[in-house]
């Protein structure tokens, strides 16, 4: 049986044709639960969950919503609700939808626009879920700190360099520093800190304790954006040099001079 020929010429239909059509028909499905039409769309998140869109009608007008699906998916992936809310609000604005804190909606949609609203909602849901989950994998590791460690380690490769170096300060307390470069007579110790108040205080405590030693240790503060710290930066600069986390090699050369 030459089903391929039949298919191409359209002169007959083999059971494979029916299989294809059945698969295509099953791409969509609609469930009816408590007055809601829950439409499974042939659109999926990057993980493989198909998107569903829920439709209600009120007279001649329709409400099209994700009915909380996007939030449920992102929470179950381990993403946080705040990030979801921010991204959902922003994307809903782009799509002209309403976001009520947990659900995205198109309200009072006319019959003529219903199909477009269902397609738009499915794509809105997909964008929000994928973006929220992707966002949850960004930012937690401070890439600038890692870049600083990499750049400094490469620059000082002729010296002995230690990460997470533990040193005893003037107060006899032990402090951990991000990086220590051991060079004759005057080790450099680097402490990375953010603009957060507690981070600045902690850096000051450590760097000042090292600055009071008389053995020639040179403490250096490293921060991603010195301008963002405000007046508290003077606390750090009163006891240590401070460099930008993205400083170029010439800065490291001056420190080593």
């Amino acid at each position, binding site marked *: 049986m030459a089903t391929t020929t039949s298919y191409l010429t359209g002169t007959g239909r083999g059971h494979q044709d029916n299989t294809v059509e059945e698969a295509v028909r099953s791409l969509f499905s609609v469930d009816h*639960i*408590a*007055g*809601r039409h*829950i439409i*499974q*769309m042939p659109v*999926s*998140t*990057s*993980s*493989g*969950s*198909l*998107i*569903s869109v*829920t439709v*209600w009608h009120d007279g001649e007008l329709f409400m099209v919503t994700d*009915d*909380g*699906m996007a*939030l*449920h*998916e992102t*929470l*179950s*992936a*381990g993403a*946080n*609700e705040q990030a979801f*809310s921010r991204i959902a609000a922003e994307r809903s604005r782009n799509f002209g939808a309403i976001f*009520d*804190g*947990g*659900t995205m909606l198109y309200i009072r949609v006319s019959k003529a626009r219903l199909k477009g609203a269902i397609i738009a909602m499915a794509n809105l849901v997909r964008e929000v879920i994928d973006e929220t*989950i992707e966002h*949850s*994998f*960004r930012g*937690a*590791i401070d890439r600038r700190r890692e870049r600083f460690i990499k750049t400094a380690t490469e620059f000082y490769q002729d010296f002995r360099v230690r990460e997470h170096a533990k040193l005893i300060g003037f107060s006899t307390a032990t402090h951990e520093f991000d990086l220590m470069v051991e060079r004759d007579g005057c080790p450099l110790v680097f402490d990375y800190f953010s603009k957060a108040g507690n981070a600045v205080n902690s850096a000051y405590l450590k760097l000042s304790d090292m600055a009071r030693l008389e053995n020639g240790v040179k403490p250096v503060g490293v921060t991603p954006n010195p301008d963002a710290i405000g007046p508290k930066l003077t606390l750090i600069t009163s006891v240590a040099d401070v460099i930008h986390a993205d400083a170029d090699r010439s800065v490291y050369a001056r420190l080593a001079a």
Partner: protein
Amino acid sequence: MPEGPDRQMILDLFAMSKQGVGFGSWQPGNRSGALKIRASIESGGILVKGVSLFLNCRIDQPDELVSAGLTIETAYGPKCFARVDWRSRAAHFNQKKICGDLQFVDAGKTHVHRPDLYKEGVEPMEYLRQNLPAAVSLDPAPGTFSELLDMAGRILSVNNLTEVEEPQWQPRLLT
């Protein structure tokens, strides 16, 4: 510092006999309609570092859209590594190559994402980043919330999951 756990650690955590600690009652989200439970995990008398149990559902949708799973701490915060999804709104399809022999298979609306579905050589961060792309259908599917707890408890090896109380669902009166 590694980004996350290695394969063997995940498989061991999944398989080990454990209990949820301090389930408490379902907590509502902030205006969102979500209900959540979060609990620490205990095994062999030790509260296990970095592993948590969660359950999620919607307050206005009784007996559907419930997820129960386990998370592990990574460099990016807690990420889900095993999950049972009960009566999701739409089916899960195994789409990606990482799904191996399950690629293109329909896992249905009630399914389980297990870490042992990925072949050796696939590092956990690959599938954690993709929000668990592989799943298998749960057949027969649990018919009630208490059946779900019983089945999910056995799948996730959480011995006392049946102690979780039924959510205080508030179905919509008007649509």
